[in-house]
C-alpha cells in the first residue's frame, strides 16, 4: 500500500485548517476524500515510504505496510515524534524476537520555530563580487587558525581583495 489510513482513526483533519498528510506528502499522494472525510494514498506505487504522513498525522491514523513485492507480512515500524525526540518501535515478523525500541534526538538546543537563520557569524565583506559567503570567514572556524588550503595555492581566499586569511 505503502502508507495506509485506518478508517476508524482518520477524522479528515476537520478541526484543522488543512489536512496534515496532504500538506506534507513530498510526492502529492495523500489526499482527502471529501465525501467520506477520510484521507487516502492515491497512488501507492509512487510512495517512497518516507513516513512523513505517519509522523505528522494528529490522530495517528496512518501506518505503513511494507511493499507487497518484497516485504513479508507481519512486521511493523512505528514512529512517535515529539518536539525534541522521535521514538521508534520495530516489531519483527517472528514474535519471539523482542521488539526494538529506540529514541533519537531530532533537534538540539533550538526549538521548532525558534531558528535564527542569520547572525551567528559576522560576515567579513559587503561585496557581492567577493567569493566570501555570509558568515565567512569566521564561520570557517578561523579562530582556530588560518584556513588550510593544501597544495592548491589557487584556492586561497586571500586572492580576493576582500578575502579572508
Amino acid at each position: 500500500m505503502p502508507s495506509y489510513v485506518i478508517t476508524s482513526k482518520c477524522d479528515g483533519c476537520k478541526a484543522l485548517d488543512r489536512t496534515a498528510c496532504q500538506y506534507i506528502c513530498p510526492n502529492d499522494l495523500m489526499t482527502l476524500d471529501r465525501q467520506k472525510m477520510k484521507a487516502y494514498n492515491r497512488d501507492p506505487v509512487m510512495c517512497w515510504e518516507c513516513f512523513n504522513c505517519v509522523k505528522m498525522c494528529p490522530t495517528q491514523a496512518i501506518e505503513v505496510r511494507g511493499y507487497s513485492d518484497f516485504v513479508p507480512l507481519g512486521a511493523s515500524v512505528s514512529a512517535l515524534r515529539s518536539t525534541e525526540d522521535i521514538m521508534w518501535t520495530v516489531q519483527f515478523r517472528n514474535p519471539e524476537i523482542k521488539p526494538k525500541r529506540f529514541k533519537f534526538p531530532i533537534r538540539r538546543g533550538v526549538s521548532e520555530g525558534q531558528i535564527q537563520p542569520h547572525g551567528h557569524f559576522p560576515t567579513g565583506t559587503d561585496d557581492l563580487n567577493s567569493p566570501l559567503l555570509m558568515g565567512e570567514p569566521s564561520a570557517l572556524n578561523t579562530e582556530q587558525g588560518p584556513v588550510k588550503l593544501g597544495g592548491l595555492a589557487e584556492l586561497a581566499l586571500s586572492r580576493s581583495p576582500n578575502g579572508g586569511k
Partner: protein
Amino acid sequence: MTEWKTVVVETDLLICGGGMAACGAAVETAHWAKQRGLKVTLVDKAAVDRSGAVAMGLSAINLYVDLNGGKNTVRDYVDYVRNDLMGITREDLVANIARHVDSTVHMFEKWGLPIWKDEKGQYVHEGRWQVMISGESYKAIVAEAAKKALAEAGGEYFERVFLTHPLMVDGRCVGAMGFSVRENTIYVFKAKAVLTAMGGAVHVFKPRSTGEGIGRSWYPPFNSAGSAAFTITAGAEMTCQEVRFVPVRFKDAYGPVGAWFLLFKAIATNALGEDYMATNDAELDKWGPYGRAKPTPANLRNWLMMMDIQKGKGPIYMQTGDAINRISKAMPDEKAARKKLKELESEAWEDFLDMTIAQALLWAATNVEPEKKPSEIMACEPYFIGSHSGASGAWVSGPKDLQTPDTESEYFWGYANMTTVPGLFAAGDASGASSHKFSSGSFTEGRIAGKSALAFIADKGNGATVSDAQIAALTAEILQPLETFEKHRDDTTDPDINPSYLRPKQFMSRLQKVMDEYAGGVSTQLATSKAQLEKGLELLAFLREDASKLGAETLHELMRCWENRHRLLQAEAHMRSVLFRDETRWPGYYVRTDKPAMDQANWLAFCNSKYNRETGQWTMVKRPVKYLTRDAER
C-alpha cells in the same frame, strides 16, 4: 474545460526548487538582498519542510572537509573526487564547494541540527569526509531557516507550484512558468535572474521492483528531472549526461551501507565467503590511474561485485555479524562488550530509521538481527544525481578567483554557477561535473550560485519583458493534457484504454522499457552498445511524438505528465552522451560492450550537449578536462 486564472509574480531572483540547494540559495541571498532591497522568490512543487532528496531525513552529512581540524585540505578533497569520477571532474567547481562547506555545517549546528560529538566535543566521523547526525528533522530545520530568512528579507515562497518551462527572451532566462497542483492557476514568475535547483532524476530507468516496490527507489521518485529539463529547454549546454549513478545498497529496500562500510568496517563477500575486492583485485589495473586510487572509485567497487554476480557467485552479502563481533571483541571486558554491542545496534538501526525506514521494515519482516546474520546487497537501477557519485547537470561557470591562466578561457564566463544561458544559474543536482556535494555541498553550492546571481542582477538589471504571446502559448501547452483527456475520455468505456491519449504512468513505463533494454538498465546488467543506443533513440523519437498525446484527469496527473516529459529530455540527453563517448570509463555504472576499454588519449574530456527547442536537434561537443592541481594525472 473549467476556468483557469493566471497569477503573475514579479521578483528579482527566482529560485526554482525547495530542496537543499534551493534552501541554501534562499538563506544566502536573503542576507545580501535585504541590504540591497532586492526581492527573492522560491517555488517548490511540494512543502519545503519535507521536499527534495532529504525529505525523509539523513543519518550523515557526507561532505565536511574540516579545514581547520588539521587533517584535510581542499586539495585532498579535490583529489578524492577527481579519482572517484575516473578523472572527469571540474576541479574549480569541486574546490569552490569544498572551501565553503564547513561554514554551512557550522551554521546547521547553530540551527539545532544534532551532529554527533565525541567526549572531546569533536564531530563523530563516519568516514574521512562524513559526520554522523541524528537527522530525522534535517530538512525541516533547513526549511525553517530558509523560509524565515526569505520572510525577513521581504521575499516570498510558493509551495505546491510545479514549474514546467523557463521563460526566455533573446537568449536570456527571465523567469519560469508552471501551475498550482492545488487549484486551477497558472503561475508566471518574471525575474532578473533564475536559479534552478530542482533535483536529479529517478524513474528514467526501469526499477528492479515491478510491483508496489517501484516507489522504493533509492533516490526519491519525486526527483523527476525538473532541473535537467529546465536547463535543456532553455538551451543551456549540459555536461556529463552519460555519468549516471548506480549505488550499491542493501537489496530491495535500498538502505544505506555507509555506516556498515565506513563506521563499522564491515566487509562484503560473495556467497562463498570470498571478498570480491580481493579476489578480483587484478581487474583494477585495467582502469588507468584510477583503479589503484584510494579509496577505489565507487563504480569500480560496483564492477568487481558485478563480476562475481556474473560468474554465478551471488548473492552478495554485507557481513554485518563479523563486523559487530570484531568491534565488541576489541572491548576490554564482557561488560564493556555488551555495552558496545547495544550502542552499535542502536547506531545501525538509526542509520536506517533516519533515512530509509523501509529498510528497517524489511529487516524486521525477514527477522534480520544484524549481529547474527548477514544481509544481501545489490546494485540499484541507474539514477541521475550530480550531487553524489554521478555527475550529470548543466555546464556552469566556475568562480573567477580559482581559475589558472590555463583553465580560465574554458571554465569562466562572468558569474560563478551561471549556465551558458545568461541569467540562468544552477546548483545541487542541477549543475554537473561537480560530484560529491551531497546535502551540505548542495546547500553550499546554492549559496554560491545565489550570491553570484545577485551580482548578475546588480550588473545587468532588467531583462527584456516576456511577451503575452509567449505566456499564452505556454499556457496552452501546459494545459494540453487536461484538454486531451477531457475531449476523449468518453470515447471508450475504460479511461485507461483510449487510442487518443496516454496516461502518464503508461508513458513512463514505455520510457523505462526503452532505457532499460537499450541504454544499459538492470535487465542487461548495465550493458549497452552503439547499435543498441541507436535503436533506442529511434524508439524514443516515437515517444517524443506521443508526448503531445499525454492525457491528465486531475491536477495531480497533470504534474505527472510534465514530470514524464522532463524525464524524456533527461533520457535523450543520456543516450546521446553514452553514444558520443566512444569508450567505457565507468564500468559498474555502464559498459559499452562495443568499446569495453577506457581510452585515456581521446576521452579524458567532457561530453557536453545542447538542445535546440525550436528544431528538436541536439549538438554534441567535447570540452577539455583541465586540472587546477598541477601534478595531477593528465
